[in-house]
């Protein structure tokens, strides 16, 4: 009888252990994981869509002189206390800005240093006799940005019994660098809740 119990327990353990699944590709938007404590892939998607739509609809990027606006991408501060790669949001917004035909983004300057240091590096070749000086990029040709895109993510978490709730607030701002005034800003929130079981 004792051996039978051990055998059944072993079979059950093997059955549970065998319930894993092989790695597979998923559609993040319809199949991604939802967690309470962190910003998930589908949360980034949702906020990116709303931020891009709000910015394009506002019309602040349209200039009276017809020239495309130049936008530098500054930092989005992560004040959630969790790991949140904010570049996901800013990179999606960059791509949407370029696609809009109304703006170009600068990689020569950025909140955490330039996105691409090559703009400065190639100008340091002007004293290097290894290079044909006629092909070296001249100083004074890089275009300074008109706008700066920045933001902040804040998390508020609360518990009640076995239920945990977290709300993430994404605030995004576009600043006119000639005046220092915010010409567009919007806030998007993502709230999630889960109730844990008695035994886990």
């Amino acid at each position, binding site marked *: 009888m004792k051996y039978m119990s051990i055998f059944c327990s072993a079979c059950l353990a093997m059955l549970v252990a065998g319930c894993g699944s092989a790695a597979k590709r998923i559609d993040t938007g319809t199949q991604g994981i939802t967690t309470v404590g962190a910003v998930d892939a589908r949360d980034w*998607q949702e906020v990116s869509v709303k931020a891009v739509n709000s910015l*394009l609809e506002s019309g602040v990027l349209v200039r009276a002189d017809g020239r495309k606006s130049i936008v530098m991408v500054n930092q989005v501060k992560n004040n959630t206390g969790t790991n949140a790669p904010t570049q996901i949001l800013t990179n999606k917004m960059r791509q949407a800005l370029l696609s*809009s035909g109304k703006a170009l983004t600068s990689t020569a300057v950025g909140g955490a240093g330039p996105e691409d240091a090559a703009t400065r590096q190639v100008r340091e070749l002007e004293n290097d006799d290894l290079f044909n000086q006629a092909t070296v990029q001249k100083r004074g040709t890089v275009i300074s940005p008109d706008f700066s895109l920045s933001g902040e993510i804040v998390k508020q978490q609360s518990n009640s019994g076995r239920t945990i709730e977290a709300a993430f607030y994404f605030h995004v701002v576009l600043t006119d660098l000639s005046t220092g005034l915010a010409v567009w800003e919007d806030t998007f929130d993502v709230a999630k809740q889960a109730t844990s079981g008695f035994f886990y």
Partner: protein
Amino acid sequence: MRKSIIAVAIAAIGMLFAGCQNTVNTMENEEKAMRPAIVDTKHFVSDSFCNNRLKLLSFRKSISQGGVMVVQAELRSERYGFFPEIWSWWRNDNPYHVLYRFEWLDSNGMNVATAGSDWVPVIFIPGETKFLRGVAPNSRCNDFVLSVVEDGRNRN
């Protein structure tokens, strides 16, 4: 006699649970000042349950200050009333979670990939009306496809 009692008991329990659900009542001005541009739509329905649960009230369009097309679908959750509420309680889909996505086509009919074309979750309380907005990625895009799918992962 016993069957009748069971049937009454089941109906009473169903009414009890259905009565516990919150539904949305709305009020609006009857004489409208707006003169919206209506979008004629054609539909492809593969999920008739989703189609029955959300009623398309209007589809409008405008041109934004940024010179791009903005479209807005007005949808209302039809999961109110005795039997729908019992069914929603049984299926644990109250509130009703769906995902929507706008995809945009340029003047050549080519899809324009953009960050604004990802799935967005939206939650409907029974009887609630919501407006799903899509903004064209640029002024060359004037045609679109709106997809709506049930977000089954939110059932407990």
